[in-house]
């Protein structure tokens, strides 16, 4: 199935969709009716100039922030204004633009927090079903160590997360989300403040996740990266969805260029 098929059928295959999301902060409108859908099993980029409301949209979709209006669906389930943890349990995981590591925990523990249902999180199980808890913990630890190996953090597993470098925190952020086995992954600027070598590497990780069937929506303003790894692009400007499609098409789209460089001042060329 080609990318074009997906875009034409996107409603049918949408893993995540939103309609008319509105959010303002003290009278200043940040998101103004954003609507789009994220095709299943693809990598979708969410791009747009500063102040377009990209991060706010991610916050609303992941439940970290309540919207003022609009609806959100994961698959066919209406999850509008659900709590953050409920959305996470639907299989949607997110990362944060500025890495938010759990600083007092070790790298390994950061990952071990992630699995959604752990019987060891219940007081009853800790004392009355220790066997089950222990087996689960061992399986999770094994998997966490595997994930850490994949993301090159294995050697740092016993370091406190707050001691990591900026780039390592970025990787931790992604591996922690992966540990939760997401169906949908929201990446908020995974490449921001990252050196070129690591950008290359993270790009590879994201493609691997796609190969495993994870649906990905990533906010990204490095368009080289978008071009290389994203199947589908959503352009957000002034809190609204401006255009969707492939990056090569969008580059020729006057409105998109305008959103990035400013409105074309010459009235004749401005449609």
């Amino acid at each position, binding site marked *: 199935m080609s990318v074009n098929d997906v875009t034409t059928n996107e409603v049918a295959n949408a893993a995540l969709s939103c309609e008319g999301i509105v959010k303002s902060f003290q009278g200043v409108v940040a998101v103004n009716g954003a609507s789009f859908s994220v095709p299943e099993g693809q990598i979708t980029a969410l791009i747009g100039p500063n102040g377009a409301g990209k991060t706010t949209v991610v916050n609303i979709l992941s*439940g970290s922030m309540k919207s003022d209006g609009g609806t959100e669906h994961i698959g066919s389930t209406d999850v509008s204004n659900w709590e953050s943890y409920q959305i*996470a349990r639907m299989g949607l995981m997110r990362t944060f633009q500025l890495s938010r590591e759990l600083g007092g*925990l070790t790298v390994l523990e950061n990952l071990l927090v992630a699995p959604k249902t752990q019987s*060891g999180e219940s007081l009853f199980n800790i004392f009355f079903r220790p066997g089950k808890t222990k087996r689960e913990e061992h399986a999770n630890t094994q998997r966490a160590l595997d994930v850490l*190996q994949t993301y*090159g953090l294995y050697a740092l597993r016993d370091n406190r997360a707050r001691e990591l*470098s900026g780039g390592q925190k970025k990787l931790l952020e992604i591996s922690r989300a992966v540990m*939760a086995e997401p169906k949908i992954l929201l990446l908020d600027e995974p490449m921001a403040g990252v050196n070129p070598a690591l950008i290359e590497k993270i790009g590879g990780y994201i493609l691997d996740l796609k190969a495993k069937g994870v649906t990905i929506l990533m906010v990204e303003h490095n368009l080289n990266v978008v071009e290389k790894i994203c199947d589908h692009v959503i352009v957000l400007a002034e809190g609204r969805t401006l255009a969707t499609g492939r990056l090569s098409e969008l580059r020729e789209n006057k409105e998109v260029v305008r959103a990035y460089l400013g409105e074309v001042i010459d009235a004749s060329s401005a449609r």
Partner: protein
Amino acid sequence: MTQVFYYVFTLIFFLFDYFILAMGLNIQYGETGILNFAYIGFVAIGAYVTGAVSLPNSVGTGQHYILGLNMPFPFNLLIGGLTASAFAVLVALISLRRLRTDYLAMVLISLSLVLYDICNNFVPLFNGADGLYNVPAPLAGVLHLTTNSFIPVIALVTGVIAMFLWWVMSRITQSPLGRTFRAIRDDETVAAALGKNVFRKQLTSMLIGSFYAGIGGGLIIQFGGSFNPSAWLPGETFVVFAVIIVGGVGNNVGLLMGSLLVETLLVHLPAFLPAIPGHPGLIEYIDAMLIGVLLMVMLWFRPQGVVPERVRKSTVIDKLLLNSNGASAVGESLHDEEATSVSQ
């Protein structure tokens, strides 16, 4: 000589009792990040309830209290702990959901004062300002103990309970639940984004911690045989904070150290010093000041405490896993370089 002997056991009693109280506050503040300024209120509830259910029928004693069940040890203690827990959950349900740290601190310290005010004034509840007295000594009947020989026994019993509760607490803090508590302490938003029901986990933490508060309080009334409102003015919460901050937040051994340094050496040892003539209570006042100063000095120079929180290393689990899966060892050497190359 015998005097000294009983003093030592009194000190031992308070060492273990405050160790229990410190573990309770630590799970709330140190592990989950809830700034519970009403902690001493839950201790008081444990003490009163334990006392009230152990006292016989009120006829003849001249005291006012609700029940008169004459319940034997350790059931009275258990009831005290559970009541404190239940009350904590009720309080948390109302106050914890949407209050930011400083609001919560204000509400809880207010609660602590109000509880004090009510207990002090409402005689039918726990006998008002007089408090409860003549509470039967635990096991005294069974072991034929006298007032003096009772002290080593209760110190020992408290020690045993403290060790048991230590074991229980270690199980909790080392479990996935404890890890989730610490995740919430470090960053609530991230914990929620990972699918953790933060509010429910905070309730659980309040429940566990306040059970410890209740048990610790129950033991105090069992030790002294009496308990009145002046024993739990809101400032007492601060002593427990001092114990955990001086000892080391998030480390159970640290809490025992803190209890030794603050409660035993600073609070109770000076109580045995002879009073300065003409200045009744001056030693206690200076003592309390010292605790405040010690806490500030510790926070400034060694905020992690005497015994800092341990890094929970993977080595133990790792060894177990390596037996079944050799891949990790290979992975380590391979990924060491990669991890360093990532630094920027």
